[in-house]
């Protein structure tokens, strides 16, 4: 009996030492998402269970190996203990209860980590390919190879793979989701810690799988908005229409002209202009084609539009490329 008591005390000491030791080395990376909280809660309980069960088995075995080992000169067999049915039932039933409890906790923490806190969460489309990630922000119409997220806002990633299976994993977010060709998988996350992280592909996807990483930046709402504005502008600069739009702002055109169906302050609207028939002051009409619009930019007085004075607008000096961009923008207004 004394042995059982000693072992019982040693098991408790060992369990505490294991638990404290395991936690002091720091088992998990920082938490950077609200979803990490229930997952780490579950993990914490698992470390408790592991520490206790580890001690429960290891201590009696080592105690027995040391205390009951064969004494010198003893050649007899050990005590004939065949088994103990109540004991076997106990260590079947109690673990069964613990297992069910842990499974329930697992389901609960899973539910918490899947909770929809914002039904209108922003959607970001993620495309995985060998061996890179791209992120499309449909709300703003740009594509980036960095994932920027505002802190404390739930977002939904709609993920697609173009070639083979990949897996979206940011260790600091905890949650992992495969990206499978032929279907869209969803990843709902609420970042909660400003910082730079990386998405790392967690499913072997070919030769350079190791390199399939992408930047994930969580920033304050203000920083995020600045980044979005930059991206929108960069995206704009990538198309002729976008460059044209920038040029007409830079050159002050929209001070007088309008880009909506409403006429401008003191100049004709560009909306639906391209290809239309323009009534001139002399009663004739002209088709608003490339040649007419180019002429009107370089020499506004050449043709006088009915109802507007051409002398307000000074001639502009622009390169043919710039004029082409402006034309492209005007064509897009319809």
């Amino acid at each position: 009996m004394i042995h059982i008591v000693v072992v019982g005390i040693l098991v408790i000491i060992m369990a505490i030492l294991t638990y404290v030791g395991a936690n002091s080395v720091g088992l998990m990376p920082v938490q950077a998402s609200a979803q990490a909280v229930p997952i780490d809660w579950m993990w914490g309980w698992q470390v408790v269970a592991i520490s206790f069960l580890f001690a429960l088995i290891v201590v009696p075995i080592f105690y027995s190996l040391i205390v009951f080992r064969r004494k010198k000169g003893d050649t007899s067999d050990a005590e004939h203990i065949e088994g103990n049915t109540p004991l076997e039932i106990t260590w079947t039933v109690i673990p069964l209860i613990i297992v069910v409890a842990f499974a329930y906790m697992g389901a609960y923490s899973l539910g918490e980590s899947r909770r929809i806190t914002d039904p209108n969460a922003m959607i970001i489309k993620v495309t995985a390919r060998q061996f890179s990630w791209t992120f499309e922000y449909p709300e703003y119409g740009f594509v980036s190879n960095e994932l920027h997220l505002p802190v404390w806002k739930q977002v939904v990633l709609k993920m697609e793979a173009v070639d083979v299976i990949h897996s979206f994993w940011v260790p600091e977010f905890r949650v992992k989701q495969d990206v499978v060709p032929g279907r869209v998988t969803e990843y709902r996350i609420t970042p909660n810690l400003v910082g730079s992280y990386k998405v790392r592909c967690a499913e072997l996807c070919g030769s350079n799988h190791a390199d399939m990483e992408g930047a994930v930046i969580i920033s304050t709402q203000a920083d995020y908005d600045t980044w979005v504005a930059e991206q929108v502008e960069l995206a704009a600069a990538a198309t002729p229409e976008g460059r044209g739009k920038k040029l007409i702002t830079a050159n002050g055109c929209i001070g007088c002209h309008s880009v909506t169906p409403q006429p401008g302050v003191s100049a004709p609207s560009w909306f639906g202009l391209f290809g239309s028939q323009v009534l001139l002051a002399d009663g004739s009409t002209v088709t608003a084609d490339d040649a007419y619009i180019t002429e009107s930019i370089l020499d506004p007085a050449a043709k006088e539009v009915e109802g507007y004075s051409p002398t307000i607008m000074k001639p502009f000096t622009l390169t043919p490329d710039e004029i082409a961009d402006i034309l492209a923008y005007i064509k897009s207004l319809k």
Partner: protein
Amino acid sequence: MKKIFSIPLIRGIIWQVIGLLVGIGIVVGIRLAMGLPATGPYLVTEHAWVFGGFLGTLTFLAGHGVMDGWFKVWRGEIVSDHHEDKPGWEKYFGPSLDHKVIGIQYTVTGLIVMILGGTFALIFRTELAFEGMQFLQKAQYNTLMSMHGIVMIVVILLGIGGMMNYLVPLLIGAHDMAFPRLNSFAFWIVVPAAVWLLSSMALGGIETGWTGYPPLSANMKLVGQQMFFLAVFIVGWSSILGGLNLIATVVRMRAKGMIAFRMPIFVWASIATSLISLTATQLIGLSFQMVMFQRLFGMGFFDPNKGGNPVLFQHLFWFYSHPAVYVFILPGLGIVSELLPVFTRKPLFGYRWIAMSSLGIALVGFLVWAHHMFTSGMNEYLRVPFMYSTLLVAVPTGVKFFSWTATIWKGKIDNPVPTPMLFTVGAILVFLLGGLTGPPNATVSTDLHLHDTYWIVGHFHDTMFGGFMFPFFAALYYWFPKATGRRMNETLGKIHFWLMTPSFFVMSLGMMYIGLHGMRRRIADYDPAMNFQPMHLIITISGFLIALSVLVFFINLIITMRKGEVARGNVWNSRSPEWLVESPMPAHNYEHPFEVVGEPYDYGLSGSKYVEFAKHK
């Protein structure tokens, strides 16, 4: 020269090459006649390689002679199942019908292939020891890592095949397995498969890991991928036929009086294992065959562009491959249960509970496969029932641990501890670590973080070492005198143990630690910003120490074979029948049949006996 060709193994391999070339020739001929391109990046198209591989397997078996008996029956000749081997080493290279010879063939092949699998690991571990790529290409890393996985799985299958074939007939008092010819066939079919598996390295390699998930495995333009599928498909036959044979043997050929609950516990474990390998192996063969056909014939099973579903493959694959891990560990756990009573000099605590727990693990094991797929995009609500069923495995596993602990409690273990017992205790401790790190992976929420990380790598190395490697070494040290009549050197055995065990703990705990912090599985290089390099160096050094300890084992093996201490009697003072006759085991096992008259593990009960030999023939 003529003598070399008379060795069946050499003859078989020559025929295998001839079959390969003929098969390639046939496909190339047909393709040319049809006006299709016949050449590819690996000389010929993969159709030719696969058909050549298939034909080469058949010609190996025919040329080797393992099917001669069946050919004779086919011709109406009378054959005998009674094994008659000439003395000497030649029998180990030919189609012997003796289960003991086949057991040794399995074991030795397993040990040789283990050297290969271990070497692959050492090569890529060296690469991982430092940041950046040192001397391997990333594609080479992927191939070595994948080969390490599948080769070690073959090692385990060979190892358990060796233990079960050698031991089960001896333990139940049978003169051989129920189907000796099938037994020989099940072993020899592994040899051509192993050749194809290794050939895949020369044919572009495999870059998918041993799991071979499509679409990656279907898209990779590497013939090696196909040879890998072919090899695993063929090895599957060995498992299925071996399982069938073992169940028939145990059901039909037990000694008089050996009712179910008087069978040695290892026999229970073997039955549980064989039930799985007989009924589940088909699924991995099928899933790999489907990818093979997707590549060869454009069948779109797993190709979303053709209406296929990549996740379906994972269901089919894991339906075998999860129960398969119980195939790998149950015999090892049976060895632990078998050896503990001998060395503690106590009965096995809760014998019936341990026996039933093996069956329980095997049966529940069929209902848990989708826990490998919690992040796969499968139906998200179905994950919860799979979490419950998976965690349920902890209950019968717990019964084993508690019963082992109770068996050791108050046991009179020799001081110093004999080597087989050291490995048995090592197995319990290592498997304990593997067992305790399992439930977090079974729990969906924590698995979302742990899946596909080094945590998992650490966890399954624990289960494989605790459930197979340590018990396998324990069994080798323990039954070596039975097989050879010589006892392995204790000092070298202890060096092996004390070098391997701490190194292994450092290695697997290190793996788990960096895994939790974001080290992914199966990556050739890692982000320097994560500061994993020191731990990777430690893991690599530990890996090399484990390899060194296994080298000590091989030195011990060779020394003992030549001039080891002669041990013909009951070395371990066991009650088991095989130790009651002289070592090495006679060719036809027991000269006098025995009858079971008591409980198998009644150590400490004076005057009790497990078996009684018949007085006269």
